[in-house]
């Protein structure tokens, strides 16, 4: 599934960049992350718990930040497996200055495997969008603090 969108954050581009490169922030901002442990240069082991209505899944996986071009571009790769299925997502983020604010453009693909894939397809695009929105809302809040 292709994902793309743009979020406006009331933060400077440098601030957004810093937030995105702070593992603590990433851990708090990414929906469902319970633990995030460094596992190499820009690589983390993560435990996620995601709930959507009655669906609840626990995933163990990795988060990786790649292709960094400070302060504007990076690629975020998330891979997780759990009893309800697996998720592999890769997204390119581009930060664009817009006055005092920053536009974050994202574009990528998300692949879902297992039960989630065969039963949840009508919900994917909505789920992904909701999770992205939550992530950026959380990022904004982190930046405000």
């Amino acid at each position, binding site marked *: 599934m292709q994902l793309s969108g743009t979020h406006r954050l009331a933060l400077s581009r440098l601030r957004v960049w810093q937030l995105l490169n702070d593992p603590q922030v990433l851990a708090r901002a990414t929906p469902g992350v319970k633990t995030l442990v460094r596992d190499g240069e820009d690589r983390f082991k993560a435990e996620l718990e995601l709930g959507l209505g*009655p669906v609840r899944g626990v995933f163990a996986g990795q988060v990786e930040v790649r292709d960094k071009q400070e302060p504007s571009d990076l690629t975020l790769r998330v891979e997780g497996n759990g009893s309800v299925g697996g998720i592999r997502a890769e997204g390119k983020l581009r930060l664009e200055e817009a006055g005092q604010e920053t536009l974050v453009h994202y574009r990528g693909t998300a692949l879902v495997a297992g039960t*989630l894939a065969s039963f949840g397809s009508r*919900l994917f695009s909505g789920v992904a969008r909701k999770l992205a929105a939550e992530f950026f809302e959380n990022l904004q809040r982190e930046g405000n603090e």
Partner: protein
Amino acid sequence: MFPGEFEYHAPETIEEALDLLSRHGSDAKLLAGGHSLIPMMKLRLASSQHLVDLKNLKSSLSYIREENGDLAIGALTTHTEVEVSESLQQKAAPLAEAAGLIGDVQVRNMGTLGGSLAHADPAADQPAPALALEAQLVAQGPGGRRTIPADQFFFGFFATALQQDELLVEVRVAGLGANSGGAYLKVPHPASGYAVCGVAAVVETDGGGNCVKCRVGVTGISDGAYRATGVESALEGSAISADAIAAASAHATDGVEPLDDYFAGADYRRALAATYVKRALTTASERAGG
């Protein structure tokens, strides 16, 4: 398929049910008709440690009453009961019509109005008429009851204004009066029967062919049911005509980002929403009698 393990509770009273919710927090799930939850449990997509079965509350939460022209519907009233209710057919047609288009006979025999609204599946039918009829949703929690207007109830994707320790107990709608008409029309997914697009429309006229009030609830299009306020304001105050309705319907997805899946992409959903808003408004206007 085969659900995982859980602890089962069948409280005898609303208070007991609320107490279980308070005690177990997010580990508890409410079971009304079960037709959204049990399939998920069988697939092991949903797993809760505590299942709170509301079947014993049926006697107190299953009713359709008329009170001063208003209609009060118990949350555990089944879709079948809503579908065949003469008072709902006459005074809240979109709700009865939507009930008759949910799933199939067997699902309607078990599924409940309250369960459907509280579950807030983005493709569920009943949120649309609830929005169009400006339903008031009555929730009961540890501190008593509160009333939530439908347009402040749905927050997208399976999310509602209900708190973890609250139970939806009643749905209230003002009955449609003279010069008012309503309708619910839907495009079901050919396999699941869920709404790819569902539109509930209510139109009130001045008796002279002008629209004085219009409410449109849309489901299936976005990550949650919504009121198409752009459509409403475009039609309100104007003379009802095919052209006016068509022009208003063009606002069906204003400010909405449609869902996008292989069966119906975002562009197609936009087109469907506009067409079905038009058709629902047309039927509602005809029923309003000019």
